[in-house]
Structure formats: C-alpha cells, structure tokens
C-alpha cells in the first residue's frame, strides 16, 4: 500500500471500435522513485502519462494516486500531486513572460500572492532560469522553455513529475540541460519522477525501466537488466546504447564482462579489472 501511484489492469482505447491502446497494463511507482517508460512511437507510453493525471480515463481497471482513485471528482486533487511536462515547448507556455507562466499554475490553485513570489523565485532558481524573469517565450530557446515548464510544475510542489518526451524536440544542448535539471530536482526534492522517452541514454539515470510494446508492459527492470535484452529490444524497434552494443561484441569474442556496463566509464572499469590484474 506504500506505492505512490498504482495502475491495476488498465485497458484503454481512444475511440470505440479502435484497437486497445493499452492492454491490461499494471505497474506501480514508489515514493521518490525514478521510473523511465520507453517504447517506440505508438507503443502506448504517452497514453500512460495522460492517464496518470486524469487527462484521460481508462475504460477498464483502476488507477490510484496515494489514497485517491483517479476519476472526475478527484482530478483537481490528483493534479496537485502529479505535475506534467509535455513534449512541445511552445504549446505549454501559457504566460506572456517567464514569471507569468510559472505563476499560472499557482494562480489556478489559489496560492496567495506573497507565497507565489517566494515559490516562483525558488522554482526558477531550481532550474537555473532566475535571470529570465521577464523574458518572452519567443526570445527563449526550446531548452529554456522546457526548463520554465519544469519550474511551473515544481512551483505547485507536486509529489510526482511526469516528463512526457520532454526532450524530444530539443537540440543536444537543450537535452543535456534538461537531464541535468531533472537529476538536480531528484537530488534536492522529495519527488518521484517518470520520464517517457525513446532516448536510451536518458534511461540509464532511472531506478527502474518499464518497456512498452504494442500497448503492453513488455519488460520491467533496472536499466542494466533492460539492456541485457539487447537483441529483443532491437526486435521491437528500440536502439540500445553504443556501450551495450560494443559490450555484446566483446563478449562474443570471449571477453567476459561481469556486470552489464551502462556507460563508458563502467565499460572502461570492467576492462581495467580484466586486463590490468593479469
């Protein structure tokens, strides 16, 4: 019962007569846990995000956020607990300036003005955007807009933040700053994080990974366990990181790596222990 959010046998379709977008999906996310959900386009991963804060409702099954069952009556409370950052930086920027945008969510939740000011300050500082108070969105880069979106969500002090392909439309620099920001948030605040992505390098930061395929949970495990499924992942259209690919070849040539390396450093260290002891 300690799970923060729980999906119980969820079935969902967008329209009657269509195929199920989600088929019997069950999983849970703990307090302060970072879960990555991956899958190629159309695997149902974004649908999950929208179900989590009541933007959509399942036809079958039950979603629970702490002690709340997500339904029409509870959505406003659920949305206080579950914040969401979307893919398109432009289409979620409501305010005419940075500070207005962060204020928007706070205004919606009826936070008094004095408290708003401190919350805006803190959350903009948390994403390193404190120098951009009065900037207009069209003068910001995509990455900066996404950081403002994160600040807007953090200001409301949610217990879970969902990143629904929040880096997909950014350049590498923007992507890197967003991933840094997420890690920073994770270290400094008491929040669970769900990142929905098809960038496998982003997955390595998560505690746990849920791999979606054709509307079903296809695999669940640590990043290391997921990357061990190298060949299977490629079959369902997901690319594994370079390090995983190299490790596979090395192993096939008789170099036995003890644990599955998930980044360059780990691979180098593995090789080091193997070849410097001799």
């Amino acid at each position: 019962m300690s799970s923060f959010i729980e999906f119980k046998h969820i079935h969902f379709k967008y329209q009657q007569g269509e195929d199920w977008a989600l088929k019997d999906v069950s999983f849970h996310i703990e307090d302060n846990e970072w879960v990555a959900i991956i899958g190629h386009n159309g695997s149902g991963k974004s649908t999950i995000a929208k179900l989590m804060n009541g933007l959509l409702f399942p036809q079958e099954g039950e979603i629970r956020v702490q002690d709340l069952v997500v339904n029409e009556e509870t959505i406003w409370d659920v949305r206080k607990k579950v914040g969401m950052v979307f893919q398109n930086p432009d289409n979620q920027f409501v305010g005419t300036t940075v500070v207005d945008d962060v204020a928007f969510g706070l205004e919606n939740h009826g936070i008094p003005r004095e408290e708003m000011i401190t919350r805006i300050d803190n959350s903009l500082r948390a994403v390193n955007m404190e120098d951009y108070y009065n900037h207009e969105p069209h003068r910001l880069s995509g990455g900066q807009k996404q950081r403002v979106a994160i600040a807007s969500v953090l200001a409301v002090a949610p217990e879970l933040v969902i990143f629904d392909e929040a880096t997909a439309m950014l350049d590498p620099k923007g992507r890197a700053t967003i991933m840094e920001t997420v890690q920073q948030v994770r270290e400094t605040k008491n929040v669970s994080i769900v990142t929905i992505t098809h960038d496998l390098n982003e997955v390595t930061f998560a505690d746990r990974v849920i791999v979606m395929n054709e509307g079903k949970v296809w695999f669940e495990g640590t990043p290391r366990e997921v990357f061990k499924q190298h060949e299977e992942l490629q079959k369902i259209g997901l690319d594994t990181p370079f390090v995983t690919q190299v490790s596979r070849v090395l192993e096939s040539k008789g170099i036995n790596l003890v644990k599955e390396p998930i980044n360059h450093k780990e691979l180098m260290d593995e090789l080091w222990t193997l070849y410097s002891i001799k």
Partner: protein
Amino acid sequence: MSNSFIIGQYVPGSSIVHRLDPRTKITIIFFFVIIIFFANNLLSYGVLAFFALLSMFTTKIKISYILKGLKPVWFIVIFTFILHLLVTKDGEVLFSIFSFEVYSGALYKGLEISLRFTLLILMTSLLTLTTTPISITDGVESMLNPLRKIHFPVHELALMMSISLRFIPTLMQETEKISKAQASRGVDFRTGKMKERIKAVVPLLVPLFVSAFKRAEELAMAMEARGYNGGEGRTKFRELKLQRVDAFIFIFSALILVVFFFTRV
C-alpha cells in the same frame, strides 16, 4: 522578417513613460484623443503637439525609429491632405494648378486633419512602444473590473487577450516558416494575377489552421494539467499599483489640459 512587423512593437527601456502604470497611460491617451477634437486654433494645437513631442522625447527611444514606424501612416496623412485640397471649397482662392483652384480654407482644413491624425497615431504608438502588451491587458482588465458585477466575463476576456498576445509571435514565426516551405515548392506569393495570388494563399492557410488547432488542443491540455478550472477561486500574481510618478504625471497632464482650454478661442 519584414520591417512592417515592428511598428509599435514594445521597446524595452526604463524611462518615466516606461515605468508609468498602464492605466495612467491609457487614461491620458483616452483623454488626449477626445481633446484633440476640441482644438480650434494654432496655439491650442501647439499645446497638444508640445505635449506629444515631450512624451516622445521622454521615452528615450530613438526618434528615427519612432518616425520610421510611422512610415505607412504618412501615406494616409498626405493622401487626406491632398483630398482636402481638391474637394474643400472654402475661403479665397490661393492659387490654381492646371484648372484646379486651391482655396485657403482647404489648405487650413487639410493641415488640421493631417496634424490631428499624426498626433493621434503618435500618441497611441507611444503607448505600445513603452508598454508590454501584457501590461496593457492588465490595465484594461483592471479598468473593466467594475463590469464583473453585471457578469461581464472580465477574467475570460483578459485570459483570451493574454493568450492571443502570447501566441502572435509564435504564429508569425510559423507563417514565415510555412510560406518559405511552400515557396521552396514553387509557390509564388509575390507576382502573378490577383486570382493566382489568392490561390497561392491556400497552401499557406490550410497548414496554419491545422497547426493552430493542434496548438490550441495541446495548450488546453497543458492548462488543464496545471489545474486550470476557470476563473473561480483563482488568485492573481500581477498586481498594478499607482506610484508617485503616476500622480505627478496626472497632475502635469491636468495642468496641460487647463492651459489647453485657455488657449482655445
């Protein structure tokens, strides 16, 4: 981006005019527009022109830039001036070009209308040059607030205005992008017969509408996800407060107003 897009676009600054409360500026300009029709002699126009020019210099925006912004308006001013010369037949004949006789009354009337027009445009563009659109919206919202009592949707109106303002630059960028993409596919927006040019707009408009709808849908979802549930129970971050400088400017403007009525005949 063409230069015509920057007419009246906000230019950041910290002059007194920039710092005034938007309500102060809107009120003053409102009265200025009314009063301009009461001017009836050279001196009274002089007072108004003095006030407008003084405001213009106080903004500390480059004069050349302001004048350049007024460029498209010059055409209308000159056009109305000439029209008056040709049509009005008051006073004595001053001189004649070809068989057209120009009357003194026409010259006076033409000058007067042109001057009025120029002052009007100058003052209103000073408002938009020194006030961010969102402050103008705030000002309007605050001034309309009493209408809430008769269930006029002030909050919704203000939200609509601010979202439109927010998306104008985005949609302009989008228009430019799509028109460039279609131009690369051989659409010619610039030359050809009227009929062809109208036809050329379709490949621009359809994608624009499609994307605007998609944006609206996503924005609505994002707003909902952030807890937007109508105006009820909402607090407000933006707050307007009249400062000492507003009081000062009000008094100064009132003074000018008094002087103005003394100069009238």
